[in-house]
């Protein structure tokens, strides 16, 4: 694979991703690993993997994003996730709107103009509720596999009400619901609802301009998208590879830096 023109790396709190794009901005290679404490070593190793897989020994131009972006010494430039997600979403879907990105440890809402430009954004980086960590923590408590979480929640006929919006207190509330004989499915559905309601509040701080887009690892969970639709009355569009959107956007910024324009989806 030698057609790769630019690279992006997203060093997130849960996962680290690398994306390579070819001319026109088509994604043609991607790697994803759980983030490790020794980020710098992991970055070197992943870049070597990328080089081996692509045959491009330099892995340049490279743009870094994510919370750990400054740790990527090999990067030609560092750019925030807001810009990268916006680029990625516009290239993947070809329109503006409102992008909700739910990451492992933060969530953000970005309002995109018709040309994909960032008009406004809001970030929740203060509280684990409203992030992937909220579900991750609670699914452990319920003994349900993370990958099946959404599916199980959607299968529920009833829904438990969770009054806590705090991740830590939600856990103790779950324990007490279980003790009262409430089933796992209704609790899971209630949990998803609590998460989505936090997201909706954040969407309203920037204002909802349809279409509504969803990205981040949590976008692979079907219950989040369905409940988001129910709460907002809008159809939710999920781009291909929602978890890679930041790294993809970073690669597109890198592509632009060498004078190439990403094409249309």
């Amino acid at each position, binding site marked *: 694979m030698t057609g790769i023109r630019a690279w992006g790396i997203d060093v997130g709190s849960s996962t680290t991703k690398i994306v390579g794009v070819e001319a026109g901005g088509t994604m043609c290679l991607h790697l994803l690993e759980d983030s490790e404490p020794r980020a710098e070593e992991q970055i070197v190793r992943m870049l070597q993997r990328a080089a081996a897989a692509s045959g491009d020994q330099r892995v340049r131009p490279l743009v870094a994003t994510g*919370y750990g972006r400054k740790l990527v010494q090999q990067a030609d430039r560092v750019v925030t996730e807001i810009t990268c997600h916006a680029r990625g979403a516009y290239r993947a879907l070809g329109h503006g709107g409102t992008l909700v990105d739910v990451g492992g440890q933060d969530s953000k809402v970005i309002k995109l103009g018709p040309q994909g430009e*960032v008009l*406004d954004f809001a*970030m929740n980086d203060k509280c684990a509720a409203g992030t992937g960590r909220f579900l991750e923590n609670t699914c452990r408590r319920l003994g349900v596999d993370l990958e099946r979480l959404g599916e199980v929640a959607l299968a529920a006929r009833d829904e438990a009400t969770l009054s806590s919006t705090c991740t830590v207190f939600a856990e103790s509330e779950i324990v007490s619901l279980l003790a009262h004989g409430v089933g796992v499915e209704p609790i899971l559905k209630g949990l998803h609802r609590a998460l989505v309601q936090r997201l909706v509040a954040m969407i309203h701080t920037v204002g909802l301009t349809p279409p509504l887009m969803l990205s981040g690892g949590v976008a692979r969970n079907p219950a989040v998208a369905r409940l988001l639709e129910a709460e907002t009355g809008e159809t939710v569009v999920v781009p291909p590879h929602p978890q890679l959107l930041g790294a993809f956007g970073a690669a597109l910024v890198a592509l632009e830096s060498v004078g190439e324009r990403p094409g249309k989806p």
Partner: protein
Amino acid sequence: MKALGDLRDYAVARVVGPAALRVQRWGNQWRAWRGSGWESAYLAPPLGVAVRGKEMVARHWLAGRYANRDRKVAWITSAAPVELLHALGFFIVYPENHGAICGAARVAVDLSCEAENAGYSRDLCSYARTDLGSLFSGRTPVGRLPMPDLLFACTNICQTVLFWYRVLAHQLRVPLVLIDTPFVYFETAPEHAVAYVQRQIETSVPVLEKIAGRSLGMAKLKETGTLSREAAHLWMEIMQRNAHQPAPISVVDQFTLMAPVVEMRGEPATVDFYAAMLREVDGRIAEGVGAVKDERHRLLWDNLPIWYRLKDVAEMLGAGGAALVASTYTNAWGELADLIDPEEPFESMARTYLYPILNRGTGHKLKTMRRMIDQYSLDGVLLHSDRSCKPYSIGQLDQRDRLARETGVPALLLEADHNDSRCYSEAQVANRVAAFIETLER
């Protein structure tokens, strides 16, 4: 023995200390002149007068160490009718300014913990906690705080001060004079509110005279009013010079350079200081020097500074070519200059101290920000959501939306606290600011 001690204190406060501070200033001026000691790729060095301002503030606190020996001391809230106290010869201490010094010296959290351990809630304003903590522990970065003979509080900034000063009065067993200023909901304060405040100021005079041990001279009061107005006018002019591009004096510098107009207004040296500053700022304009070396974005700052991160915030913004050009906070110390009328001191004090920004509706602040956006050609707004200062932070979410909608200028909310660094997350603030600047760059 006591006489010897007095002599020693006198020598330190009046001779040795000021001389040492002067030598320090000369050293700083020499270094500034040679251009050494300043390392920033993005920011111009601070104004030359900054070293003079620093010396003024240091002298004030030095004199404060020994003030209890021969002067009456008043502790006072930042927007109270200080002119009265100046005219009566009080040595004046602003616990809020002292709090800011503790914040900048990064000891505010330690002191707050002292207050928290004594049972004061962390939800209280961090200035109040810093002050109470300093009182309980006796620790302060200014050497020694003179104890008050009088507490003088005005409710025109918040209700916190009301309870904070009551605690002080209880702890220190000193009289508290409280000026209650009704909230100004609309454009102008009703005349009965002005009359109400005026009456309180007038009736406070005998109490103040009794503590001061002298009577209030009208000539002195008028002179103080005149000096106060002049200083505030000059300060306003300096800030308005930032309509020039590039802006000659960053808001971050204004945050520290405003100390004299807050705590020494009414003194001749303060007027001289700001006159010199204005000359220097004009010099920068003539030479085309900006506070940020490569100014590409011009921003507004709303709310108090983050005292313990001033330089970092300036660098972070400067790296993205963003200059803080105007702020509602520093503006508050200049915008009332026209209301001070030395010929009608009581009535004009009543009006002046009814109109601080925090004693007015949120609509007024929004209007002020809109005007600043035009006046200073701004392209972004940073709203510091200050966990401590509720009256300043309330309504910021709506203000953010309305600014974006009505002026097209984007605004960013930054959650922090002016003194309590436990409410500040470096990585998150840096991330938001970087993302905001990228948005401006589109």
